[in-house]
C-alpha cells in the first residue's frame, strides 16, 4: 500500500469523505489518518461542518401547508388564464419581462445632454399573486452621473423584496444610450392607480412619468385601447 504525505492526504480528504476514491486510495488515506493527528483533526473538521450543515433548522410546516400551496397555485393559474384573454397587453409567464416603448425628454442643461424615459403606451396588468417584471428603458443621449430616481407605487402594489414600501428613492448613473430599469411587481390586492417614476438630474431638471397599473381580478375603469400614448412632459 502506498504511503501518503500529509499534503497529498489533505487534498484527498474531500474525496475520502465523499467515498469517491478507489479502494486502494481509500485504504491509503485511512492508514495515514490513523497515524497522523493533524490530518485526523482536519478530517474531523470536515465531517463536523457537514454535520452542522445537515443540522441547519427548517421551518415547521403547518398541517394545511400542501393544501394552501395548491390553492395558491390554482389561483395563479386561473389569473394567468384570464390575463391571456386580454390581448391588449403582451401575455407573459411568471417573471418574464415586457418591453414597452414611448418617449419622455429630460433636459439637464443648455447642452444637448438629455435623457428620455421610454414610457409605456398601455396599462400594465398585475395578476393577483404573481410577479410581473415591468421593464422601462431610460434613454440618455449623454452620460448623466448621479441622477436621482424616485418610484411611487399605488396601493396594493409592491416591489418584490420591498414589501410594504410604497416609495423608493435611489441614485443611479445614467449611461449614454439605454438604461434598463427592471421592476418585479406584485399585486397584493386590487390595484387601480398609477405608478409614478420621477427622474431628477444633478442640475435640478425633473421629469415625471406615470403608468397605469391594474390587477387582474377586476377590469380597469378607464379605456384600454392599445397604443394609447401617455402624456409627455
Amino acid at each position, binding site marked *: 500500500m502506498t504511503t501518503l504525505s500529509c*499534503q497529498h492526504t*489533505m*487534498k484527498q480528504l*474531500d*474525496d475520502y469523505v*465523499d467515498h*469517491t476514491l478507489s479502494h486502494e486510495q481509500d485504504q491509503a488515506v485511512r492508514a495515514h489518518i490513523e497515524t497522523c493527528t493533524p490530518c485526523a483533526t*482536519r478530517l*474531523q*473538521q*470536515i465531517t*463536523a*461542518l*457537514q454535520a*452542522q*450543515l*445537515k*443540522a*441547519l*433548522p*427548517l*421551518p*415547521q*410546516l403547518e398541517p394545511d*401547508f*400542501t393544501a394552501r*400551496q*395548491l390553492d*395558491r*397555485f*390554482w389561483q*395563479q*393559474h386561473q389569473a*394567468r388564464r384570464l390575463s391571456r384573454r386580454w390581448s391588449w397587453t403582451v401575455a407573459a*409567464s*411568471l*417573471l418574464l419581462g415586457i418591453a414597452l416603448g414611448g418617449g419622455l425628454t429630460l433636459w439637464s442643461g443648455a447642452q444637448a445632454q438629455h435623457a428620455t424615459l421610454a414610457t409605456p403606451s398601455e396599462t400594465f396588468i398585475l395578476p393577483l399573486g404573481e*410577479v410581473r*417584471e415591468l421593464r422601462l428603458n431610460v434613454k440618455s443621449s449623454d452620460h448623466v452621473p448621479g441622477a436621482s430616481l424616485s418610484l411611487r407605487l399605488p396601493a396594493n402594489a409592491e416591489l*418584490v*423584496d*420591498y414589501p410594504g414600501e410604497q416609495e*423608493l428613492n*435611489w441614485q*443611479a448613473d445614467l449611461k449614454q444610450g439605454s*438604461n*434598463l*430599469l*427592471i*421592476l*418585479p411587481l406584485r399585486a397584493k390586492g386590487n390595484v387601480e392607480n398609477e405608478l409614478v417614476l420621477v427622474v431628477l438630474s444633478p442640475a435640478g431638471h425633473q421629469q415625471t412619468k406615470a403608468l397605469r397599473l391594474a390587477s387582474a381580478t377586476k377590469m380597469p375603469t378607464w379605456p384600454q385601447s392599445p397604443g394609447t400614448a401617455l402624456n409627455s412632459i
Partner: protein
Amino acid sequence: MMKQEFDLLVGPLLPWLFRLAYRLTNHRQDAEDLLQSVLLKIYPQMRELQHIDQLKPWLGKVLYHEFIDGQRRQKRWLQLLDPQAPRNPAAPDVESLMPGTEAEAPDRQLENRQCHDRIIQAMSTLSSEQRALIVLHDMEGYTMEELALTLDIPTGTVKSRLHRARQRLRLCLAGEPFSEPYV
C-alpha cells in the same frame, strides 16, 4: 389536466420540494414563491409527468434551474435598482425556524443558534451555483451522479465544483472549530 390528478401527483411531494427550496433560499416567502414558480412551470407538461417513473429527481432539477434563473434575474435588477440596497436575499429567516427538539441547556441552544447563523451567513457569500451544490450534496444527500443529471454537467465537473464550493465555505468560516482551510 384535471385539478384532482395534478394535486394527487404533486401534492405529496410539496413538503419535500419546499424543504429543498428553503435550503436554497433561506427565506420562507422566497421558498414558497420558488415552489409556486415550479408548479407553474411543470403544469403545462402534466401529461408527460404522469409517465415519469421518478418524479422527485425531475422536480428537483426543475427547482434547481428555477432557483438559478431567479437569482440571475434578481441580481440584474438589484444592480440596476440600487447596488447598495440593504437587502440580503440569503439572510436567514431566523424567527420562523424551529428550536431544537431535544432538551438542551439555554447556553447550548444559543451556541448552536449562533453557529447556525454563522454558517448561513457564510453560505450566503457563495455564488448561487456553489450554494446549490452544497445544499444538494452535503445537506440533501444527492450523489455525484444525481447532481450531474440535475445540473446537466459531467460528474467530474460536479466534483471539482463541489470541492471548490466547500473550500470557499471553509475560508468564510475561518476561525470556527470545523473550518480550518487547507494549507
